[in-house]
């Protein structure tokens, strides 16, 4: 018999402050996006060039999503297939190293490759449309890789063994069995990569491309047309929601297609020397172009050209902003995770859905939404002018709405460890609520909370467009500093802040990589 208390019983024993917190969390996550849609529909943009700007941006974004997304799928699914179902030299190391490119945001890769191209250090010129597509493909393929790897790994060993018994070659097995079974997983990963491409501002802007994201900034700053910026944001938001929908429904199917429940080592193909060597080169190339080469290049430039005095203040600002933003977002994410776990009805999941919406929405869109809400409050006379304080408040709001979802996963993992009846045992041993919280719940959940905090800290540190829009005057962060140097074509000086962001980004990715490695070791 199960030891878990029934939902009805949990309700009876605990007061329901969680519901209130969840409702507030929903509001915080969803309000900026709702504001954008509402204002875009109700306010007249009144500019004839608006339609052209939207059309041009939509075509640009769509082309980049198609080109970058196709590359990410080919690289990610191919690498996942190789490491899960084939044997070749270095396979075990590649399995976790392949996630490393997630450390660098696209705009950092763009600055690194642009300076490399400019200095003649790049093996091929990285510029314009294809340069951006290349950066998205090598930088974002890990999204597909992670989802596809999970899909391949969860496939029934029996189905694959049966295919081998029937004499299927590796390529036939890939095309006829493994790929169709993994398709939902690949689609979910690809949707995440496309979401990132559509939301990217820094890389597209640096390569001079017209996308919806760059159009938002052009309308806002160059044309001084806030209503138009909101309309473009609304289009971008709808695109993001489509990707979110694809990801969610594909993920649902992925778990449905998830084969047998009993874990068994998958039968791996022995590749011959040539094929095995090519597989190793393929995986190594992804890691080199996605992380190693830009990292070393930025390191070299930073050592040669860093202006340390110039980045001390941005560094401190980044730490303070990311630290306080992460703390705030963490509490929001915790409320959402607890509410979702407690939820018995569809309504209970609404904070989770709202957080997912915030995560899908591009930073610039959420920032404009939060800003508009403060603008409305000022029109209504509730707040004064948009000073530094209010703009910081809008920035924190944006971070919380954007990233709460990224914190929910790890916190939920911590809660799932707690649900195992530790609370009940502590109670029968005479521990009161405070002692249970401090000596049982907190230490057991602490590693997950720390992981969530780290992820949020780094996400905020890497964030560029919302920070650009909402930062108080003269308040530079590392991301803003890298951006402004790069905009001024001072790419050598942009290297130092870019490198710091890259290194910070490595921390959560290394944790992720280590979990992959440990799980593999534990399973073997």
């Amino acid at each position, binding site marked *: 018999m199960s030891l878990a208390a029934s939902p009805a019983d949990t309700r009876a024993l605990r007061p329901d402050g969680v519901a209130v917190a969840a409702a507030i969390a929903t509001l915080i996550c969803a309000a900026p996006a709702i504001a954008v849609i509402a204002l875009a529909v109700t306010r007249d943009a009144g500019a004839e060039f608006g339609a052209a700007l939207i059309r041009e941006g939509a075509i640009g974004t769509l082309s980049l999503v198609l080109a970058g997304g196709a590359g990410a799928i080919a690289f990610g699914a191919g690498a996942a297939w190789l490491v899960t179902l084939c044997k070749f030299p270095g396979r075990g190391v590649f399995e976790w190293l392949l996630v490393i490119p997630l450390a660098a945001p696209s705009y950092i890769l763009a600055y690194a490759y642009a300076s490399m191209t400019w200095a003649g250090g790049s093996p091929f010129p990285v510029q314009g449309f294809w340069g951006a597509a290349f950066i998205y493909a090598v930088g974002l393929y890990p999204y597909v890789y992670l989802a596809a790897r999970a899909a391949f790994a969860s496939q029934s060993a029996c189905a694959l063994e049966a295919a081998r018994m029937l004499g299927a070659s590796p390529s036939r097995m890939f095309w006829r069995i493994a790929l169709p079974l993994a398709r939902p997983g690949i689609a979910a990963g690809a949707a995440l990569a496309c979401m990132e491409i559509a939301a990217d501002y820094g890389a597209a802007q640096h390569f001079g491309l017209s996308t919806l994201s760059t159009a938002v900034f052009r309308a806002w700053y160059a044309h001084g047309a806030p209503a138009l910026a909101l309309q473009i944001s609304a289009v971008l938001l709808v695109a993001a929601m489509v990707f979110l929908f694809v990801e969610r429904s594909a993920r649902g199917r992925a778990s449905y297609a998830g084969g047998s429940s009993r874990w068994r080592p998958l039968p791996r193909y022995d590749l011959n020397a040539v094929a095995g060597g090519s597989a190793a080169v393929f995986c190594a190339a992804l890691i080199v172009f996605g992380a190693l080469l830009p990292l070393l290049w930025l390191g070299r430039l930073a050592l040669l050209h860093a202006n340390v005095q110039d980045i001390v203040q941005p560094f401190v600002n980044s730490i303070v902003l990311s630290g306080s933003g992460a703390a705030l977002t963490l509490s929001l994410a915790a409320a959402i995770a607890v509410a979702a776990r407690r939820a018995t009805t569809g309504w209970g999941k609404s904070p989770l859905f709202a957080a997912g919406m915030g995560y899908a929405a591009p930073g610039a869109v959420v920032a404009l939404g939060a800003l508009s809400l403060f603008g409305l409050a000022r029109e209504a006379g509730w707040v004064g002018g948009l000073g530094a304080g209010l703009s910081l408040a809008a920035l924190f709001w944006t971070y919380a709405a954007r990233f709460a979802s990224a914190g929910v996963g790890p916190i939920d993992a911590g809660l799932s460890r707690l649900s195992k009846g530790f609370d*009940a045992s502590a109670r029968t041993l005479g521990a009161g609520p405070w002692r249970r919280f401090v000596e049982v719940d907190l230490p057991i959940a602490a590693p997950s909370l720390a992981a969530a905090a780290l992820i949020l800290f780094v996400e905020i540190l890497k964030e560029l467009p919302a920070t650009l829009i909402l930062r108080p005057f003269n308040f530079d962060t590392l991301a803003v500093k890298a951006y402004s140097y790069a905009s001024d074509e001072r790419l050598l000086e942009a290297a130092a802040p870019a490198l710091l962001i890259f290194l910070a980004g490595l921390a959560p990715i290394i944790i992720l990589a280590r979990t992959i490695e440990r799980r593999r070791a534990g399973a073997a």
Partner: protein
Amino acid sequence: MSSVRVDKIRRTYGKTLVLDDVSFTAPQGQVVALLGPSGSGKSTILRLIAGLEHVEGGDIHIGGERVSGAGLTVAPEARRVGMVFQDYSLFPHLTAGANVAFGLDKLGRADRDATALKWLDRVGLKHRANAYPHELSGGEQQRVALARALAPSPRAILLDEPFSGLDAVLRAELRDATLATLAEAKTTTLFVTHDAEDALQAADRLVILKSGRVLQEAAPRDAYDHPASLDAAAALGPINVYKSAVANGVVATPFGNVNASQLANGAAANVAVRAEALMLAPGSGARVIAVRPHGAHDLVRIEAQGIVWRALAPARSALGETVSVTIQPAGAFAFSG
């Protein structure tokens, strides 16, 4: 050390009635087994006694103190009742020693550590005091959980399927060791099991449950020899069931007569005959269909007049193709049907 008295308790989950009018007593210092299939509500009874859930009707008394009743649920932390959970629920971030010491926070540090070590020693795990739960085997985890529950000297101790996660050899060994520890501690014990052998061997008293109701409350010997109903008889081992009418104070079955003198002549009756109460000898009367080894016995399927029964015969009995069957009266019961 206190008695536990459960009086007419009721509990529902949503619209499902989990416990309906359940009453029994666990006398001070005795070991009581709650025996029943999954879904019989036995784990819920433990959670109610522990105070982890509230009763919807009826009362629970521990040592004469009313701890649960309509509108009253004394918090688990205030009950001084120990519990060993089915998954043991050892705190993963604490060593075995610290797990046992967790309930001893009223003591000073030195006392606490000494008491924890004493209890680990009693379950034979003193040398594992610094090991973390994930470093312990299943059997070791169970023993640490037992020491942890006993260390604060609870008024009663509750064990939820204490031996279910263990393999057969370890199970018997651990059951005996656990009983010895409990006997030494002289603590009133309630344990939940779906295994008749565990219940018969370990308990001073049985409470047989089915679908949230008590079928019978008795000493193991009495429950085995005088089952209160067909279901109560079935709970303690394999039985053969036959439906017929009473004639001349007996029910005639294809394998022999069963005494039914307490029932009226002509009344419908259900007969239960324990598999081990069928004596087989070379002869005629029933056909042997199959013989399968079953530990110390052979499980023999016999057929007569189209009816198939199961019998337990001494292993490697020389049986022919047909046998004569004798029903031992001590293992045959008639209930009105």
